[in-house]
């Protein structure tokens, strides 16, 4: 891949998204499960899926690198060396889980507390796999397992976005993981070795990076009224639920319940409307 091609793609990523969105919308039904999708590729720079994945993952990798530096510094307080932190990032590759685990290690919490927190925070990943599974039915199992290893929140969001507008493509996901995974592992290990490289992360606005990434991934994906309703209900449920429940559990329940409630409500609305139509027809026939 020549630098010129990469620079063209970057330019298209930065300035051409509006055009891309219009094109995507004109392509018709979303293809998260590969149903009747028009598979024409919108790829002005002629890049491979893998490179596209890497380019799309650039913002995510940047945020991972910055958060990895923060985690590495935190890990030094827990007396973890660069090898320990690097190994944790290499094997676990889950930001929120690792931050929680390092926090618990600093507080000298027992192993059981760390593992139960890990489980609680990882439960939402069940929904990610469930959402992608129908699209990946034809993929070999080992490829699905490889994808599963790298399925963080952000990787999932990029994958979900991509699968909705194009056919399911694991090479693209491999490109996303190929950039974000090393960014995370190397930055955590480096920070654990060197220490505080970014003196005041908040002065650079790094604390707003994660919300911005999620808003940037979620909001453009909301196209129909039903999707907006699902997202809105999930937000209300998680914010209300975390008052009484651990945040990980509230998140899981909100994510599971919101689409269920919205889809049930739609079914109910449709059946009521059909009933009214039927009774209207009967009245017309009688009169």
């Amino acid at each position, binding site marked *: 891949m020549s630098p010129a091609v990469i620079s063209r793609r970057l330019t298209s990523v930065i300035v051409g998204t509006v055009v891309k969105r219009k094109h995507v919308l004109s392509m018709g039904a979303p293809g998260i499960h590969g149903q009747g999708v028009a598979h024409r590729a919108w790829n002005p720079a002629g890049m491979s899926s893998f490179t596209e994945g890497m380019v799309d993952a650039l913002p995510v990798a940047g945020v991972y690198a910055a958060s990895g530096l923060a985690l590495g510094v935190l890990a030094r307080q827990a007396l973890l060396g660069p090898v320990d932190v690097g190994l944790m990032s290499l094997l676990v590759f889950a930001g929120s889980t690792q931050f929680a685990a390092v926090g618990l290690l600093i507080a000298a919490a027992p192993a059981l507390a760390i593992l139960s927190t890990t489980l609680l925070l990882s439960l939402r990943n069940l929904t990610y796999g469930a959402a992608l599974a129908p699209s990946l039915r034809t993929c070999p199992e080992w490829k699905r397992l490889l994808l599963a290893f790298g399925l963080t*929140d952000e990787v999932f969001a990029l994958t979900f976005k991509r699968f909705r507008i194009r056919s399911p493509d694991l090479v693209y996901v491999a490109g996303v993981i190929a950039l974000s995974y090393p960014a995370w592992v190397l930055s955590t290990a480096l920070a654990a070795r060197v220490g505080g490289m970014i003196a005041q992360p908040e002065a650079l606005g790094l604390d707003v990076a994660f919300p*911005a990434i999620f808003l940037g991934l979620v909001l453009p994906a909301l196209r129909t009224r039903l999707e907006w309703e699902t997202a809105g209900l999930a937000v209300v449920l998680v914010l209300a639920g975390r008052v009484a429940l651990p945040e990980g559990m509230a998140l899981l329940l909100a994510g599971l319940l919101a*689409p269920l409630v919205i889809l049930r409500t739609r079914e109910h609305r449709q059946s009521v409307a059909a009933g009214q139509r039927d009774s209207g027809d009967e009245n017309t026939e009688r009169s």
Partner: protein
Amino acid sequence: VKLLLVIGAMAAITFACRALPLIVLARRPLSAGALTYLRYLPIGVLAAVAAISVWPQGRSVDLPFAAGVALAALVALRTGNLLATLLGAMGMTALLRVVLRGL
């Protein structure tokens, strides 16, 4: 050794949660209702994740952070561009912090 065991167990738990549905659900045919539900499921989960990152628990009101989030939402809706969303939000937050510190 204990730390290595904890790290290994954390990795196993995380991987199991990620891999299990990809293995189990991909093997069996799903009903149309289940497929529709699974199509909306990511929107619910990602919106919930976004909500708790926008409103972190125990965080006091912070004007530059709120302005950064608002700009991120605006840019995301207008352009759908992830990089522009990220840079806009970070730039706005950092700029406001500099300005407010100078006042």
